[in-house]
């Protein structure tokens, strides 16, 4: 019995050798950070955290207090600023439930890689948040804007970003691991979706912003920002952003429209339901070439002209037009990227995978090679369905 007892004790002791989350923290001792903003400051960084007030979000007796609070602090490093924040925050900041990290535009233009080390090194964060750039404003200001419906602005930004990516296309959720690999792996540059505000951010920080039907200030998902190395160098416009997503096979659902034809006036819109893009790279006598093969399936969603959608030849015609338009969008996007001299599509990476030997010679000179890169775009466009009605209403009008 004595022997068993000491064995059991020894066994019990071994759990102290295990790693795990040791410190227990009660829920009421945590300040749950929903968003983090990083701006440039003369001291180094200005860090802004958006902390939620659970009592105002899910509590029983809601007051007129705001559902989130922000705290800002400067520091030489991100970590220092974060820890210095404890002088103003009531509780210890808890970063696991972070939804979004906003990088100020000015800060992004100056290079972001140094700040990312802390974020990727810290064990507390779940890697589920998206990074974004605040277009034409400081991250601090963007984090202060209150949003209707979603009580936590960070959640509103994240879910807007998600729905925009999934249903509209010119946006992209970039999580930390993807950003870090874009910054470190040769042959691919980083992108981050932008965030902009319509209206004055100062007004948006007032509770009145969510007390009116038409909020004075709203935050919008903007277009995609292009990085060169770790510096923001320019922005795609809406079409270019969409083209970027077509090339990187990140389109889940979007819409497109074309003019109906010569006889019929008006437009026809289709809902893209499936998109598959394959990138093929080849190097012939030191001349790299990329082939983009995109297969798109779509349904007719909106016919605003008197066209007969039963007519297969008409459908073929529409398909041809849409194919051409997609090609144009893709080319526009490539053109802009070449102009900014940033290989955001990862063409270099494609070559490195498919032609690893020859890629080694191109690698050091890739910026120049990218500017003159030969790119072939092949688009296949198939219209599958015509929706729940067959003939357009316009054709049957009295």
């Amino acid at each position: 019995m004595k022997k068993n007892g000491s064995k059991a004790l020894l066994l019990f002791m071994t759990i102290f050798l295990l790693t795990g989350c040791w410190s227990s923290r009660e829920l009421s001792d945590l300040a749950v950070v929903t968003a983090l903003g990083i701006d440039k400051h003369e001291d180094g960084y200005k860090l802004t955290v958006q902390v939620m007030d659970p009592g105002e979000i899910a509590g029983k007796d809601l007051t007129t207090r705001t559902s989130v609070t922000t705290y800002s602090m400067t520091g030489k490093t991100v970590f220092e600023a974060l820890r210095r924040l404890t002088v103003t925050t009531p509780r210890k900041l808890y970063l696991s439930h972070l939804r979004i990290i906003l990088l100020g535009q000015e800060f992004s233009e100056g290079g972001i890689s140094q700040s990312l080390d802390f974020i990727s090194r810290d064990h507390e964060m779940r890697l589920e948040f998206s990074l974004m750039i605040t277009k034409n404003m400081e991250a601090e200001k963007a984090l202060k804007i209150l949003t209707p419906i979603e009580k936590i602005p960070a959640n509103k930004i994240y879910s807007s970003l998600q729905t925009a990516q999934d249903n509209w296309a010119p946006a992209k959720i970039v999580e930390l691991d993807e950003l870090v690999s874009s910054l470190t792996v040769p042959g691919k540059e980083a992108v981050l979706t932008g965030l902009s505000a319509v209206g004055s951010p100062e007004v948006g920080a007032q509770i009145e912003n969510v007390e009116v039907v038409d909020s004075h200030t709203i935050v919008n998902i903007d277009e995609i920002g292009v990085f060169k190395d770790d510096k923001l160098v320019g922005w795609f416009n809406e079409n270019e952003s969409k083209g970027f997503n077509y090339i990187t096979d990140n389109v889940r659902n979007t819409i497109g429209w074309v003019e109906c034809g010569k006889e019929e006036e008006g437009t026809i819109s289709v809902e893209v339901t499936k998109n598959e893009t394959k990138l093929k790279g080849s190097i012939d006598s030191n001349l790299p070439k990329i082939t983009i093969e995109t297969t798109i399936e779509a349904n007719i969603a909106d016919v605003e002209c008197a066209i007969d959608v039963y007519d297969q030849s008409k459908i073929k015609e529409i398909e041809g037009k849409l194919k051409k338009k997609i090609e144009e969008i893709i080319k526009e996007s490539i053109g802009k990227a070449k102009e900014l001299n940033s290989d955001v599509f990862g063409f270099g990476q494609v070559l490195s995978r498919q032609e690893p030997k020859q890629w080694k010679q191109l690698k050091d000179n890739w910026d120049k090679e990218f500017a003159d890169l030969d790119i072939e775009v092949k688009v296949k466009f198939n219209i599958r369905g015509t929706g729940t009605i067959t003939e357009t209403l316009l054709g049957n009008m009295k």
Partner: protein
Amino acid sequence: MSKLSQVFKALKSKKIVMDNVSDDDNMPLNKEIKKNISEVSKVLGNSFDIVIREFKIGKNPIEACLFYTDGLIDKDLVHNYVLENLMIDGRKAESDEKISSNQDMYNFIKNSSLTSVELTEIDTFQALYQHLLSGDTIVLLNGVSKGFAVGSRGWEDRGVQEPSSQQVVRGPKDAFSETLRTNTALIRRRIKDQNLWIETQKIGKKSKTDVAIAYINGVVNEDIVLEIKERLKKIEIDAILDSGYIEELIQDEIYTPFPTIFNTERPDAVSAGILEGRVAIIVDGSPFVLLAPALFIDFFQSSEDYYQRSDIGSLLRILRFFCFFLALLTPSAFIALTTFHQEMIPTTLLTSLAAQREGVPFPAFIEALIMEITFEILREAGIRLPRAVGSAISIVGALVLGQAAVEAGIVSATMVIVVSLTAISSFVSPTYNMAISVRILRFGFMILAATFGLVGIILGLIIMGLHLSSLRSFGIPYLSPMAPFIPSDQDDALIRLPVWIKENRPRLISQIDVKREATEQPKPPPK
């Protein structure tokens, strides 16, 4: 530890010495009836329920005497078949037969007069007391140093009623009662096999309780029968008041929260156990019959599993296992998640949990402990409470402690849900004693969760698993047929397959006469 066991030993030896003092009346009966009467009334302390009826038999009257314990006998039987026969036949006998001595009369009574089925000759006081106090009627004749014990047991009995703790929707609705004879009859009525053997013995220096073991010879593992008899023989105790005493005195492992002997008040469950090759231990005075050996999975099986269709029976069994873990781990998992692993909770859920916890003055562990203890108090009170005030407890429990505690901000609403879920899950267990084990272990897991988080819970589960696999019930591994894994026994373990698939008895429990049934799979007639 060793010091403690020394104390136990010392106490034990003392007890034996104490018991030995009162066992000295193994003395033979006297020839003179007066002496016998005075001895009996002296020893029994003139107890007022002991009736001594003196009378005379025959024309040359022979003094005779009749003892019985009031309340334990069937008075009609004693009137009609004992006293009447003795007094009337005694007279006739003298004219018909040659009776010259008291001994002749004695033989005549034994052979031709007492029309009772059960008749035992006794010649010592010890036997006299034993029969008398068991409800037999004692007849003594003057001049003969022997007597009769006439079987006349008959006392007020609860009768066969519905089971109170293990009810079923479909299936037999009778339950054991406190009388051994009724209970054995209930088993006999279900298994009319000549190989169903029921052996009895008396246990308890003072209570002299009848304890019967029942098994099917030729199916049961004889080593187990011998082992059970051996362990029963070793029992030295003054009284057995319930089968729980026996369970505690013969179980394999003492230091465990898990029961290693099954108990039930359902005759069908006992019969099923006996048919599988188990041994039933029936104790007079207890409606709970023990079944040994018992395995862990037995405590999750209800008789109804076999009476309903096999698919629903299997689903319910899986549900019971699920509820076992739910009852065991819900509070501890909740504590671990909310105090250690907040990152594992979805953000929206965390928000609402955090909102509820704003203003709750206690840490989650204390909060859970308060609610769990409150619940245990309510449960205990609910059992002991007089039925008339029973509804009060539900009002106090539900309204005062549940709703008001939340509204007062002492506990969070989620914690009430967690504790209620735990409570309801623990009632799913078809056997009460497994639910008790869970109740005990739950608190251990809560402490582990509060100190080490999920690491602690996993550690607790590992220790529990190791402990369970170290247990044996009369030599059979407690976790079988899971560990050791016995493929052929899986048809009636976690799930219950249709009866026509379950051909064999459980392998470890019975190894002789293995085949149970050979019905072919039912086939629908061709259309």
